[in-house]
């Protein structure tokens, strides 16, 4: 086995490194900066140039080496390279080749381009370790054009009614995607500190984002009526939002595809904006890798495994610590 599954994470015995480990290890290759993939406490990190700034921002002083997409590294005779995953800026799939056998770890990915993340590319392999967060046929995303029309319409209507529009989106990836998706000429974009800190990191590395205004206790909110407030989902429920006066709230998440989840979140609107592949995307990705062995890591693993088996793949489930929504919401409190 080029890669095996250990209590610490996905392990390459020949190269003696881990991919996205959740327990402390010596050497960690990290697909992207989300908290359920980039854990703290490893001795040495390897990630893409584009993911590195956010990881430093989140994990502090770490020993982090970075590589370009497609650049090949040899680690103890194992050839390793990072390839775009289209999930968030800097996110990668990790290709591992040993003695002619190729394995790919998908991390999190999205197959359709969002104009922000490096677009996903299929990587041919023998074994594909894939997420399947939305691995059910009920998940079928709208195009970004349809989504931005929905969000713009909501924002415009709120602005006309003298309200702010507050949208809950994870600080890394989703928040920037929402602000690039909307028509920024409608009004000002106001950001929560957690979002703006990430914006600053991304801007510094050359990512183009629309103008935003960081909300602090000094911000004169009256000077920015009808704004689009972009904040982590948890901030929408807390006292932070009160300062804005009348506000319509929305959540941007793939889970908003389910009416029940949408209603539970008790926001005024739910927009189905996901940074993960939908059912068709997952199936396309599996097909395009050309892999015969598939390992499903997080999401609807049992369903996706059985489905793949019926399609003729050798499919298995791997228990991991990925896909924990809690980590994302907790970190967003900061």
């Amino acid at each position: 086995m080029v890669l095996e599954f250990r209590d610490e994470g996905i392990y390459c015995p020949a190269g003696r490194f881990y991919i996205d480990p959740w327990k402390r290890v010596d050497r960690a290759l990290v697909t992207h900066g989300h908290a359920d993939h980039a854990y703290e406490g490893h001795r040495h990190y390897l990630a893409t140039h584009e993911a590195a700034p956010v990881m430093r921002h989140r994990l502090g002083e770490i020993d982090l080496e970075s590589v370009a997409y497609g650049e090949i590294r040899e680690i103890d005779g194992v050839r390793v390279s990072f390839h775009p995953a289209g999930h968030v800026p800097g996110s990668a799939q990790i290709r591992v080749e040993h003695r002619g056998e190729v394995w790919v770890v998908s991390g999190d990915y999205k197959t359709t381009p969002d104009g922000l993340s490096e677009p996903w590319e299929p990587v041919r392999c023998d074994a594909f370790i894939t997420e399947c967060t939305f691995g059910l046929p009920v998940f079928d995303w709208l195009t970004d054009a349809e989504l931005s029309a929905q969000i713009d319409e909501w924002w415009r209507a709120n602005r006309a009614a003298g309200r702010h529009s507050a949208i809950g989106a994870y600080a890394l990836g989703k928040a920037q995607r929402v602000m690039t998706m909307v028509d920024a000429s409608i009004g000002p974009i106001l950001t929560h500190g957690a979002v703006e800190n990430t914006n600053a990191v991304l801007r510094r590395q050359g990512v183009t984002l629309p103008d935003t205004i960081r909300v602090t206790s000094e911000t004169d909110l009256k000077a920015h009526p009808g704004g689009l407030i972009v904040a982590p989902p948890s901030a929408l429920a807390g006292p932070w939002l009160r300062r804005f006066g009348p506000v319509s709230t929305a959540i941007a998440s793939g889970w908003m595809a389910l009416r029940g989840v949408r209603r539970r979140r008790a926001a005024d609107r739910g927009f189905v904006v996901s940074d993960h592949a939908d059912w068709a995307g997952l199936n396309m990705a599996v097909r395009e890798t050309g892999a015969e062995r598939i390992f499903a890591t997080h999401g609807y693993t049992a369903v996706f495994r059985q489905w793949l088996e019926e399609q003729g793949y050798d499919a298995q489930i791997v228990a991991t610590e990925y896909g924990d929504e809690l980590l994302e919401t907790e970190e967003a409190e900061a």
Partner: protein
Amino acid sequence: MKRFAQLFTALDQTTKTLAKTAALTAYFEDAPEADRLWTIALLSGRRPKRTVNATRLSEWAAEVAGLPMWLFKASYDVVGDLAETIHLVLPEAEAAPDRSLSDWIADIRALAAQPEPERKAWVLRSWTELDGAERFVFNKLITGGFRVGVSQKLMTRSLAKATGIEEAELAHRLMGKWTPETTSYVALITAPDPEADLSRPYPFCLAYGVEGDPADLGPAEDWIAEWKWDGIRGQLILRGGQHHLWSRGEELMTDRFPEFARAADFLPDGTVLDGEILAWDAETRRPMGFSALQTRIGRKTVSKKVLADAPVILRAYDLLEEDGVDLRALPFAERRARLVGRIADLPADAPVALSPVVDFADWDTLGPIRETAREAQAEGLMLKRKGSPYHVGRKKGDWWKWKLDPLTIDAVMVYAQAGHGRRANLYTDFTFAVWKEDELVPFTKAYSGLTDAEFRRITHWVRRNTLARFGPVRQVPPEHVFEIGFEGIQKSTRHKSGVALRFPRMLRWRDDKPVAEANTHADLLQMLEQYG
């Protein structure tokens, strides 16, 4: 259907009452009358019956979507709603001309009489013609499960705004056994005939739970206390030589409770009583407990044996109509006096008996009386202001329920299962156990009572601490103690623990309590002894 789907979306995507009222009022002002009537019917629970069975629909949808049946079912398990699952898996619709809600419903109703191949062809064609929310609403209508988060009160208020008719009057007009087939918008709403439906009930007056100290309600002498019975709220109507029995959910229960056919032997025509239906032990003159009444619920026809084992009466506590005159505007004390005059002296075999008042001198003495409610086979007390009219629906201030605190037990979580629909991505359904020597005996499930943040925390823990999986159920290590609250306890042969709880829910997560200090099976049996 576009206009109706637009209304549905507007109602479904907001939690704000004002926005819902505005959307409904606008709809009642501009939709065609026939659609308005159907909308009123749908929002007051008068849904067309299911015309295609769920299995067929699932098969057809899976076929159109190109999915194996197991995968469709797995999707349905997560979504938790058949109409939504079908809507989500189907391919996008093609453009088609718009047809009104009432036209669609007419077609759906006609479907019942058609042979299956035609039915299938029609449903499949409809799926290709209806887009977005329209298709979801359509699925809800053919599966007989249409619901939207709008109370009848909110609907009535919006209709009042759109028509200028007073809200309480409208609420009364909307009661009873009408359907859009038996009436019209004009006959029901704008120019009704009061004689048209003699079975029509009055809207029920509902109570809020007491918050804090009842002494805050003002002088005790302004109030009447009654036992709060654990039965079925019912309104018994005697008009035009016939009797009708309505539930609070506006369900006609006349046939289910044949005991009330004899009511006319004891009460004059033109009488309407409000009270509680209870299984009644004529010998001891005491209620038999909810488990006895349960044998009568959900049965359309009642066997002689069930009738003999669990006979019911109405314990009446209000008189709404006397000699055909609506008394609802009179003060409660006056209505109560007239009620006593009508039924206090009825013979013991009458199907109606007076629900007594609970005498009390002041608020301080009422508290200890409430504590004895379980001995009186009651759930607590009702407090009613002597001077209050019989309100329409729930209105704060004049009627209060002062229930007993629930029974509680500290139990250990042993299994967890993911929720459905609104909580599909969280572990919310737990099985709890108590100690029997050094073994944990599961005794109940509970799935509500925690905050979303707590459910997220426990979900995080369950994912990391699964011992074994049995389908969707995960066994977890016995590490967490929860306080379980419940309203009653009964003997059960179906459960290994030997008991069944009524309305179990989690009251709190006992983070502070070590597992060894959870309650024992002996504690449960003692509660059964005491309250069962």
